[in-house]
């Protein structure tokens, strides 16, 4: 639930020759549109693209990276999950509008605050034809607790005491403490069910390019050509008629180079892609080979304050730095203006089931940090930190990393702080998110942090005292108490009201400095249609709904 370096990962390969490439390409191609760099781009949210006219034999897709693994226990990134979401299913289903509905569990109950009881759906078969049983569910979930496996989703299971079969089609999960977040995570990879027999048979090769997987989704993973592509084939025995795959076959290609990806789309060789580099959007729109769409996202770009011992330990300095940054200008330069400046760390899209009162508390009358260098300078004088140094980490990952680190450094200089940009390798940058020693001497680093469950509490849970991803060790007892209280509340509306108070505290104290949020981008070639452009593609079988235009 930390997703973030996925942005790092995603953009990684772009680093090599992204900039030079873009220059040459725009010179060579007949790109007549030269949008004014300062004008805000014209775009709107789309919930669903046009319905397909019918089935299609096959279509192709391109991903920025090869999955690390298709073992659900390690599927923790855009690249892994955008493939796996079509092949493997979870107990619950995360829909494109970020609501949860029944999945492989046709119902769930919550008889006591510490227990979750799942009724396993009847009539579901794995791709090898064997029926889904409660024993498969127990075996699949128990892997997250097995240290030999070392699951990426362990944090979801950290309060789990037992996972037991308690009936013919019933599985009961017992927790050490009330935890509303556990069930919410069952719509993601943490809730995936695999055949127990397959897990035992494949062993260490489960989920790699020769072991493959055997799940229940609308597509079967039929081939993984290492380094090149995966092929998904329609599963004819799929249980849910409403999500029966419209395509007989889907080929998902991996291209780490952003130019290669954009070229493949522009030349019509590939039918679509998620997450289009923002500097290629105009090119693709004018290519005549398909359409750009913008959809629901949960990611917020922000600067993580990773050292509260330095000048940023003073709340006034964090406020001053936020005000000294021309965040709209940074957004324009880093993401071509696709998005909007924000003062909080969640998007409205994850506040599913929130009450009106909570939405008001969470988003109305927030502390704002308008671009005001003079006011910021005053705060710096009050704090008495003029001349002190902050270090901003960045990596040659993509243009936005450079723009944001330079923007933050310039802002710090403009208010009398010394700012140093420390450029590290992409892998060292990734390590900032998991290795405290890697963060030593670093005050700030950029992240684009997304949530994978329909609850803003996933974000604020991270900022509690002593949490693994509370990188600056920020601590506020009132905030901790609110978040802990909210975690134990099952009713989403009541929970949202407490979470909203926590969001206000984060908005006022700025443990991380929120910058902007942007839409999920999607390009669909002119052969295909029928998909919801939403970040839920990580867990929802998006490819199943795509058919012929």
């Amino acid at each position, binding site marked *: 639930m930390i997703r973030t370096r996925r942005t790092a990962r995603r953009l990684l390969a772009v680093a090599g020759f992204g900039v030079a490439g873009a220059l*040459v390409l725009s010179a060579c191609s007949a790109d007549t549109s030269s949008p004014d760099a300062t004008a805000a781009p014209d775009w709107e949210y789309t919930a669903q693209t046009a319905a397909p006219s019918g089935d299609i034999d096959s279509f192709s897709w391109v991903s920025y990276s090869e999955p690390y693994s298709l073992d659900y226990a*390690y599927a*923790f990134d855009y690249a892994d999950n955008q493939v796996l979401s079509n092949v493997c299913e979870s107990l619950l289903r995360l829909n494109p509008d970020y609501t949860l509905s029944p999945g492989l569990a046709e119902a769930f109950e919550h008889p006591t605050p510490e227990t979750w009881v799942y009724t396993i759906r009847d009539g579901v078969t794995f791709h090898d034809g064997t029926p889904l049983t409660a024993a498969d569910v127990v075996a699949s979930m128990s892997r997250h607790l097995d240290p030999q496996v070392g699951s990426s989703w*362990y944090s979801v299971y950290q309060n789990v005491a037992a996972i037991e079969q308690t009936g013919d089609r019933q599985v009961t999960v017992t927790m050490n403490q009330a935890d509303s977040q556990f069930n919410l995570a069952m719509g993601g990879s943490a809730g995936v069910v695999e055949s127990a027999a397959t897990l035992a048979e494949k062993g260490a090769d489960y989920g790699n*390019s020769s072991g493959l997987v055997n799940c229940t989704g609308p597509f079967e993973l039929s081939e993984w050509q290492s380094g090149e592509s995966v092929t998904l084939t329609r599963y004819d025995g799929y249980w849910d008629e409403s999500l029966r795959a419209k395509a007989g076959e889907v080929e998902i290609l991996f291209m780490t180079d952003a130019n290669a990806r954009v070229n493949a789309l522009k030349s019509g060789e590939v039918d679509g892609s998620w997450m289009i580099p923002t500097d290629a959007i105009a090119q693709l729109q004018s290519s005549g080979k398909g359409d750009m769409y913008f959809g629901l996202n949960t990611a917020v770009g922000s600067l993580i304050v990773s050292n509260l011992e330095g000048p940023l330990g003073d709340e006034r300095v964090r406020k001053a730095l936020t005000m000294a940054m021309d965040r709209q200008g940074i957004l324009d330069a880093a993401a071509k203006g696709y998005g909007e400046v924000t003062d909080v760390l969640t998007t409205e899209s994850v506040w599913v089931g929130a009450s009106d009162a909570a939405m008001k508390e969470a988003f109305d009358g927030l502390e704002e940090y308008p671009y005001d260098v003079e006011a910021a300078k005053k705060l710096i004088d009050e704090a008495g930190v003029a001349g002190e140094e902050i270090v901003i980490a960045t990596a040659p990952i993509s243009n936005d990393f450079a723009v944001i680190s330079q923007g933050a450094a310039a802002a710090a200089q403009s208010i009398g702080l010394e700012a140093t940009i420390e450029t590290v390798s992409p892998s060292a940058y990734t390590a900032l998110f*998991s290795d405290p020693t890697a963060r030593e001497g670093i005050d700030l680093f950029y992240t684009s942090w997304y949530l994978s469950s329909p609850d803003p509490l996933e974000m604020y849970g991270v900022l509690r005292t002593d949490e693994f*991803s509370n990188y600056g060790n920020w601590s506020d007892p009132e905030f901790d108490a609110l978040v802990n209280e909210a975690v134990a509340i099952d009713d989403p509306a009541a929970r949202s009201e407490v979470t909203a108070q926590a969001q206000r505290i984060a908005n006022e104290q700025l443990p991380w400095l929120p910058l902007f949020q942007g839409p999920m981008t999607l390009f669909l070639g002119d052969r295909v249609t029928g998909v919801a452009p939403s970040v839920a593609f990580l867990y929802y079988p998006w490819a199943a709904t795509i058919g012929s235009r």
Partner: protein
Amino acid sequence: MIAVRRIAGKLGGLLLTLFLASVLVFFSRFLVPDDPVAFLLRGRKPSPEAVAQITAQYGLDLPPWQQYLIWVAGLLQGDLGRSLQYRQDVTVVLGERLPVTLGLVVMAGTMIAVVGLIAGAIAALHRGRLADRSILIGLTVLGAIPSFVGSIVLIAVFAVQLGWFPSFGSGEGFWDTVYHLVLPSIALAIVFVVLVGKVTRSSMIDQLDREHVEVAISRGIKRGTVIRRHVFRNAVGPILTVSGMLVAGLLVASSIVEAAFGLAGIGSLLVQSVDRLDFPVVQAIVLLVVTAFVLVNAVIDVLEPWIDPRSAAGAGAR
């Protein structure tokens, strides 16, 4: 006899080189400050026992010398270890990607040899004239085009604009693969053509100036025969030496071209694995490249006296 002793000596040197390379390749990874386990976590919150288990599974808890011995013992049995990022045997990962890179290197190598030799020979035979000058300028211009620029231009023109060639992928089956590798091979060959071309030219000019060539021509032996028998055959030595060095260069430079054309070869795998701290894969590829380089040069060393008897007998026999 001399030849046998010569080859045995070469073989001993070769094994020593490979041993030293393996030590260097293996232990250099400990100079990298980053912790592969921290990287494997990719920012997610692990259970403390899981961290210990993962560390043990990959043998990362053992002292380096022990890790080295295990690695070498594995190497000798054809086991290159297990990739951290793919959770799969390195031999499988490499096996899937080696054919692409080999295809690319062979095609590019052929283009380099053919174009370089012809251009160099024509230039040498027309020394100082228009043909020579235009070939020299042409080669210099080509040599100044980095592979990534070449890739971008080739894709933009021949794949995106004209649509003659695919812009990515390595194809399936022999002819489809050749078709897919045409543009990448050209992109890879461009920089190296200049080397072979220039060495061929200067090496042939060197021979043309030799006394015995002048004598031969003055005696009325046909120019074509002289060039074939004396000039070209004697000029081959330096060209072969340069070609041997090109092999390593091609293997390394292919990473850039592979990335640009979305080819799943070992070059792009190397770059990716370095970034992801996937040491077993990095070590295997580096060792592979070193081995290929050493072997090719050893073969050239052994072959040279067959082609050019003078180098076996030593320079004194001139």
